[in-house]
């Protein structure tokens, strides 16, 4: 029991560091949106996503304490598999549906085409 408490691996310092990083990584994206700081929307979205991903990694490291050593590496293995599946599901569906939308004829053109059929 004390063994797994050690395995949890958090100290006061590490929690506070994780919390501080999270506060900064939360405030910057909200500041970008509320303060209208970045003119280019695409850049603003990219910055928000990068900061979000960074904060997720901060949480995984400082709050969830995932390391290579815990559970003989099984924790990292299952996390890696989950991430792989997530990338396939997310990137796959967004890519496929975007292509579908791009290649579909707009509705009004379809109606026109049906009207002009001989």
């Amino acid at each position, binding site marked *: 029991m004390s063994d797994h408490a050690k395995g949890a691996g*958090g100290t006061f310092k590490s929690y506070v560091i994780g919390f501080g990083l999270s506060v900064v990584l939360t405030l910057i*994206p*909200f500041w970008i949106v509320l303060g209208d700081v970045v003119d280019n929307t695409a850049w603003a979205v990219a910055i*928000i996503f990068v900061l979000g991903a960074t904060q997720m990694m901060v949480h995984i490291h400082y709050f969830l304490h995932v390391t290579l050593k815990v559970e003989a590496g099984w924790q990292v293995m299952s996390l890696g598999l*989950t991430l792989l599946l997530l990338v396939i*599901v997310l990137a796959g*569906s967004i890519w496929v549906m975007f292509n579908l939308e791009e290649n579909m004829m707009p509705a009004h053109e379809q109606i026109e085409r049906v009207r002009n059929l001989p």
Partner: protein
Amino acid sequence: MAQTDTEQPNEFFVIEEPHHGDDHEEHHETGTMLGFWIYLMSDCLIFGILFATYGVLGRNYAAGPAPADLFDIQMILVATFALLFSSITYGFAVLRMEMDDLRGTVFWLIVTVLFGAGFLYLELLEFTHLWHIGATPMASAFLSSFFFLVGTHGLHVLGGSIWLIVLLTQLGLHGLTPENRRRVMCLSLFWHFLDLIWIGVFSLVYLTGVLL
């Protein structure tokens, strides 16, 4: 025949018994933690699919309201901080538990559940507001996927809060027994995991939604 019948359960019991003894206690516990972790990963896949659904449908407004008309980013910032504070206070509870300080553990867990309740209250306010102005899940594909994703996260936080209250009762009744410590550690993973999912929600749904 009758003899073997009575003997078998006995033998079975004897074989099972050492697993509950002190020797195997640690092994047993790590098994629970890993199992719970794998449950969290499956939960992560559920959220991943909901994120993908939102990513695909999130811009089909069906001539209805768009995110910029609906979301109050300042309130979302407050809700985000409520969850973030609850994460760090849960961390403090775990640290107190490692020092065998029951009172400290209970205190920080109560603070955690209060922050969780604050988050739920803000989310309830937002949902009732959206409902009153007609932005229901039936209005558009964007709102269907929005309510499904954010509502599922909210239900998880609600479940976590109920679990936390039950755990506080258990701690009050039995103190820091090995079972209760294990439960505190499992809920700790669950609670931090929910905060992690919320990062995805506010980045993708709220901030990006308002910008685009």
